[in-house]
C-alpha cells in the first residue's frame, strides 16, 4: 500500500484543485456533510424527536414509534416519489387523490354487490389491473404536460378533479355509498394481506439478548462513524506502531465495559463508576487511534483568548445560570396548566432546553473563534464546553423524575461530553488534512455504511423485540406492519436510482434546465413522463396499503394530501424550482410531519395547533436549507480559489449580520 505517497499526492492534488475546476476542490468532512440537501431536515428530525421525547411521556416508546412510522410510511412513500418528480421540475396535484382512487378501484373490481354490480374479480387480477391503470394515469399526466407544454400544476389539477369526481361517481354508481368496503371478500385476500398489511406484534416476540445487541450495535456503529470522521479529517502518518493500536484496543474495551455497568445499574455510585470508565475508555481509544494513524501536530500555540471569545464565554455563563434558575424556579412535580400551550412542566422543559442549547452553542462559537488564534486556545474552550455538558448531565439527573432522564439521557450526554473533549484533544495533537486522500476516502466509504448498518440493526432489534423485564412491567402493545418495510425499501431504491443511475442523472438534468438537457442528448420528455409514472405507481402502492389496512376506503381519501407530500419534500431539502434535492430528504420530511402529528397529542397539547407547528417547521426548514446551501457553496468557491459568488455572499450577510 503506497501510504508514503499520500502526502505528496494530496499536495499535488491540492495545487491542481486550487487553480482548476471548482467541482474538484477539496472539501473537509463537515463541509461535505453540510452540502447534502437533506442535512437540515435530518438535524431538524433529531431535534424534534428529542423535544417531544423530553416533553411527552409516551413519545419514543416502541408503541409510539410504531405509530409514527405507520403515519410516515404512507406519507413518506408519496413524499419520496414527489421529491423525485420535483427534482425533475414538475408537480403532481393528482397524487393525493390518486392514492384513494387506486384503493377504490381495486375494491370495486373485486365487489359483486350493488345494482350494477362490481366486476367480482379475484385480487390476483384486480391488483395488476389497478397497477396498469395507475401507470396509465402517470403516462397521461406526463404526456399531457409534454404535448401541451402547459404547466404541470394546471394539467394535474385537472387530473385531480377528474379522479376526485370519478371516486365519488363510481362509488355511488356501484355500491350507492361514498365509501367502498370489504376488500377481504376478494379471492386471494389472505395472500395479498400478507404482502401489504402483515403485522409484527412486538409483544409476542422475546429476545433475551436484545439489549446487548442494541448496545453493541449503537456503540460499534458510533465508533465506526467516529473512525470515518477521523480518517477524513486528519492527516495520516506514514509509519505506524503496534503499541498505539493496542492502546486503541484497550480503550474500546474499557468503553464497552463502562457502558455495561452504566446500563445495568440505576444508582448514583454505579452511574458515576460507569460514566468514568466510559469517559476514560473513549479518551484512551481515541488517543490510541490518533497516535496509531495520524501525523502529530508540532506547534500548539498559547491559550490567549481574544475579546470576541471571552465575550461568548461570558454570555454562555449567563445562559447556564439562567438554565439552572429556570429548573429550580418551577415546581418539578406540578401538573398544572399555565397558559396555552404549556403545562408548568412543559414550560420548564422548553425554557431549560433552550438555555442549555444556547449555552452549548455559544461555547461552540467561542471555540470556533479561538481556532483562529491557536489550537491550544480552541482546546481550552472545548474542554470548558465538555465540562459544562458533563455538569448539565448530572444536574438533569438530580432534577428529573422520569427514568429516561436519569439513566438514558445521562449516558448520552456523558458520551457527548467525552467526544467533545476528545475532539478538542485530537485537534491539538494531530494535524488536519487539507487535500484529498484516496485511501482515506476508501476506508471511510467502507466504514460509514457498516457503522450506519450497525446502528440501524441495534435500533431495529430494540424496536422489534421485548424482554422478560418489559413484559413483567406490563408494556403497551406495539405492532410494526409491512407498510414500514415498503417505505424503507421504496426510499432506498429511490435514493439509489437518483444517485447511481443514468435515469437519476437525467432527472437532475431536466429539472435544472430542460432545454439544455435536451440539447446534450437527454430524452427530457420521456424522463419526465417516467417520473409522473413513478409518482402514480407510488400512489397505487399507497392505495393498496390503505385498502388492506382499513378494509374500507372513503371517496375523499387522499384528497388534499398532495400538499402534505410537497411540504415533506420541501422540508427534506428539495427545491420547488427543480434540479436540486434528494429522495431520502422526502422520507425525513415525512418522518418530521409524522412526529408532529404524534407528538402534539402525546404532549397533551390541543391538536388544533399542529398546523401552526407544521407551518413553523416548513418555514424554518426552508430558511435553514437555504442558508446551509449558500454557505456550503461559498465555502466550496473559497477553497477552489474562485472569486466568491456575490449572490451567496449577500445571502450569508443577510443571515448573519
Amino acid at each position: 500500500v503506497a501510504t508514503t505517497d499520500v502526502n505528496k499526492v494530496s499536495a499535488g492534488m491540492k495545487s491542481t484543485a486550487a487553480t482548476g475546476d471548482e467541482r474538484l476542490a477539496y472539501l473537509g468532512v463537515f463541509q461535505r456533510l453540510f452540502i447534502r440537501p437533506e442535512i437540515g431536515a435530518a438535524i431538524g428530525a433529531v431535534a424534534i424527536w428529542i423535544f417531544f421525547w423530553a416533553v411527552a411521556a409516551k413519545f419514543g416508546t416502541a408503541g409510539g414509534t410504531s405509530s409514527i412510522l405507520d403515519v410516515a410510511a404512507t406519507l413518506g412513500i408519496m413524499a419520496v416519489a414527489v421529491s423525485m418528480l420535483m427534482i425533475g421540475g414538475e408537480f403532481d396535484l393528482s397524487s393525493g387523490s390518486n392514492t384513494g382512487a387506486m384503493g377504490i378501484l381495486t375494491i370495486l373490481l373485486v365487489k359483486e354487490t350493488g345494482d350494477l354490480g362490481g366486476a367480482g374479480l379475484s385480487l390476483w387480477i384486480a391488483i395488476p389491473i389497478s397497477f396498469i391503470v395507475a401507470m396509465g394515469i402517470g403516462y397521461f399526466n406526463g404526456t399531457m404536460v409534454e404535448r401541451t407544454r402547459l404547466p404541470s400544476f394546471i394539467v394535474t389539477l385537472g387530473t385531480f378533479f377528474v379522479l376526485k369526481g370519478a371516486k365519488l361517481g363510481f362509488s355511488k354508481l356501484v355500491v350507492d355509498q361514498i365509501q367502498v368496503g370489504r376488500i377481504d371478500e376478494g379471492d386471494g385476500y389472505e395472500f395479498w394481506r400478507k404482502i401489504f398489511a402483515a403485522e409484527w406484534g412486538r409483544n409476542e416476540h422475546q429476545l433475551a439478548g436484545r439489549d446487548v445487541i442494541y448496545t453493541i450495535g449503537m456503540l460499534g456503529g458510533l465508533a465506526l462513524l467516529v473512525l470515518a470522521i477521523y480518517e477524513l479529517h486528519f492527516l495520516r502518518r506514514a509509519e505506524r506502531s503496534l503499541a498505539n493500536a493496542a492502546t486503541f484496543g484497550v480503550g474500546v474495551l474499557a468503553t464497552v465495559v463502562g457502558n455495561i455497568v452504566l446500563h445495568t445499574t440505576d444508582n448514583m455510585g454505579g452511574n458515576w463508576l460507569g460514566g468514568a470508565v466510559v469517559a476514560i475508555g473513549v479518551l484512551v481509544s481515541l488517543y490510541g487511534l490518533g497516535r496509531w494513524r495520524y501525523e502529530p501536530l508540532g506547534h500548539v500555540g498559547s491559550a490567549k483568548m481574544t475579546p470576541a471569545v471571552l465575550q461568548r464565554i461570558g454570555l454562555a455563563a449567563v445562559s447556564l445560570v439562567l438554565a439552572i434558575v429556570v429548573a429550580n424556579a418551577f415546581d418539578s412535580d406540578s401538573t398544572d396548566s399555565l397558559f396555552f400551550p404549556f403545562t408548568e412542566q412543559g414550560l420548564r422543559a422548553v425554557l431549560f432546553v433552550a438555555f442549555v442549547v444556547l449555552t452549548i452553542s455559544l461555547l461552540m462559537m467561542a471555540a470556533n473563534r479561538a481556532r483562529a488564534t491557536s489550537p491550544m486556545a480552541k482546546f481550552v474552550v472545548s474542554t470548558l464546553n465538555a465540562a459544562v455538558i458533563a455538569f448539565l448531565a448530572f444536574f438533569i439527573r438530580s432534577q428529573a423524575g422520569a427514568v429516561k432522564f436519569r439513566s438514558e439521557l445521562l449516558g448520552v450526554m456523558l458520551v457527548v461530553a467525552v467526544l467533545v473533549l476528545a475532539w478538542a484533544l485530537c485537534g491539538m495533537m494531530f494535524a488536519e488534512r487539507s487535500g484529498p486522500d484516496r485511501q482515506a476516502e476508501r476506508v471511510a466509504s467502507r466504514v460509514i455504511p457498516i457503522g450506519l448498518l450497525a446502528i440501524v440493526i441495534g435500533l431495529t432489534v430494540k424496536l422489534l423485540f421485548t424482554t422478560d423485564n418489559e413484559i413483567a412491567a406490563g408494556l403497551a402493545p406495539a405492532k410494526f406492519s409491512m407498510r414500514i418495510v415498503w417505505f424503507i425499501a421504496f426510499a432506498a431504491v429511490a435514493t439509489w436510482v437518483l444517485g447511481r443511475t443514468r435515469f437519476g442523472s437525467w432527472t437532475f438534468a431536466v429539472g435544472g434546465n430542460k432545454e439544455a438537457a435536451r440539447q446534450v442528448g437527454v430524452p427530457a420528455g420521456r424522463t419526465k413522463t417516467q417520473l409522473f409514472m413513478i409518482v402514480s405507481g407510488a400512489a397505487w402502492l399507497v392505495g393498496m396499503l390503505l385498502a388492506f389496512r382499513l378494509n374500507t376506503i372513503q371517496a375523499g381519501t387522499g384528497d388534499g394530501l398532495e400538499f402534505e407530500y410537497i411540504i415533506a419534500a420541501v422540508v427534506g431539502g428539495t427545491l420547488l424550482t427543480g434540479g436540486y434535492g434528494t429522495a431520502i430528504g422526502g422520507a425525513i420530511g415525512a418522518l418530521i410531519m409524522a412526529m408532529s402529528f404524534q407528538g402534539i397529542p402525546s404532549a397533551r397539547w390541543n391538536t388544533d395547533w399542529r398546523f401552526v407547528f407544521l407551518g413553523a417547521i416548513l418555514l424554518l426548514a426552508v430558511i435553514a436549507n437555504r442558508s446551509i446551501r449558500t454557505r456550503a457553496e461559498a465555502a466550496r468557491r473559497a477553497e477552489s480559489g474562485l472569486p466568491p459568488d456575490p449572490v451567496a455572499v449577500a445571502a450569508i450577510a443577510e443571515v448573519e449580520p
Partner: protein
Amino acid sequence: MYHVVAAIINQFKGELLVMKRIHLVAVFAAASLLVASCGSDDDNATSSVAPAGDTAAPAGDTAAPSDDTTAPSGDTAAPSDDTVALTAGGDITIHMVTHSDDGPFWSVVKRGAEQAAKDLGLTMVWAASNNDPTKQVQLVDAAVAEGASGIASSLPSPDQLVGPLQAAVAAGIPVITLNSGVNDYQDIGALTHVGQTEVIAGNGAGERFNAAGATKIFCGRQEESNVALEERCDGLAETFDGEVISEFVGRDTDQVAQEAAINAALSADPDIDGFMGTGPVIAMSGLRAVQALGLEATVGGFDITPELIDAIEAGDVAFTVDQQQYLQGYIPVLLLFLNITNQNTLGGGLPILTGPGFVTPENAAEVKALVAAGTR
C-alpha cells in the same frame, strides 16, 4: 278606479316628481293591481288596492312595489286553494328544495319524501342544489313561480335563503324547513322545522356513555372548523357526568394520521375510558386506536355507514347516533299536506326533532336490513 290610486299618488307628488323612475314603477304597480282586482269577480277590489297603494308609494326602492304585486295575487290564489282542499289531494304539488348531493344521506331523505307523496296521493318535486346556495335560491324562486302548494326547504346558508323563503311565505305558500335551519325557521315564518339539533343529539350520547359507566371521554372531531361537530361534543359534555376533552384529530381524508393522533391522545392520558367520534369514519379510526392500544374503552359514533353498523353488530362499538333522516323527508310532506288541506300546524312553533335515534348492538341487525332497503 284609477282616480283613487291617482289621488293617493298625488299625496306624494313632490317626491315622485323628483324621482321619475319610481313614479313609473308606481304607476306600473298600480296598473297591475288594477288588472288583478278587475280579474277577481268579488267587489273588495278597492280594499285590496288601497293598502297596496299605501305601501307602494312611500317605499323609496324598486323592490317593494314588485313584491306587492305578488302579494295580492297570492291573496287571490288563496281562495282557489280552498277549493282544491274540498276536492282531493291529487292537485297538491309540494317542492322539496334541499342542498342535497344525492349521497347516501340525502337519498334516504328523498325516499322518505317519495313515500309520503305516494301514501298521500300528492305530487312531490325533488329539487337538489348539490350544496350550491345560488342554485338553491333559484330552485326556491322556481317553486314559487310554478305555483307550488307547499315548499319544504333545507337552510344550509341562511344569508341567501331566508329572503326567497320569506317571499314564498308572503306569497301564501306554506313553508317548512328541514335538516338545517333550526335557528332561522321562525324568521322565515315557516310552520315548523323538522330536523335534529346537534346539542340534543350530543345530550343523548352523553346519557349513553353514563349508562356504559365511562368516566372520561375523548370527543374527536374530523373537521377543524365545523360548528355542528363542536355542538355534538358540547352537547355530550352537558349530560355526561365525567370530563370531556373535545379536539380536532385529523380529517377523514387521511385515516392513518387520524388514527395515530387518537392513539397518541388516548395513550397520553390513561384516565380516558371512552371515545366519541363526531362522524362514522372517525368513530372507526377511534375503534382501531382503542384496539391497537388494548384498551377497554366505550366507543360511540355519529351517523351510519355499513362498516360502523358491522362494528356495532360485533359489539366493538357501543352505539351510533342516528338522526333518522327518513323522517326529515316524510314528515315535512305530511305536515304540509295537513296544513294545505286542513290548516293544521304541529309542534306549537317549536322544532320537531327527528333524532337522536340510536343504533346499538340490540337493533343493529334490523337497522342493517333497513339501511340496505334505503330507509335508514
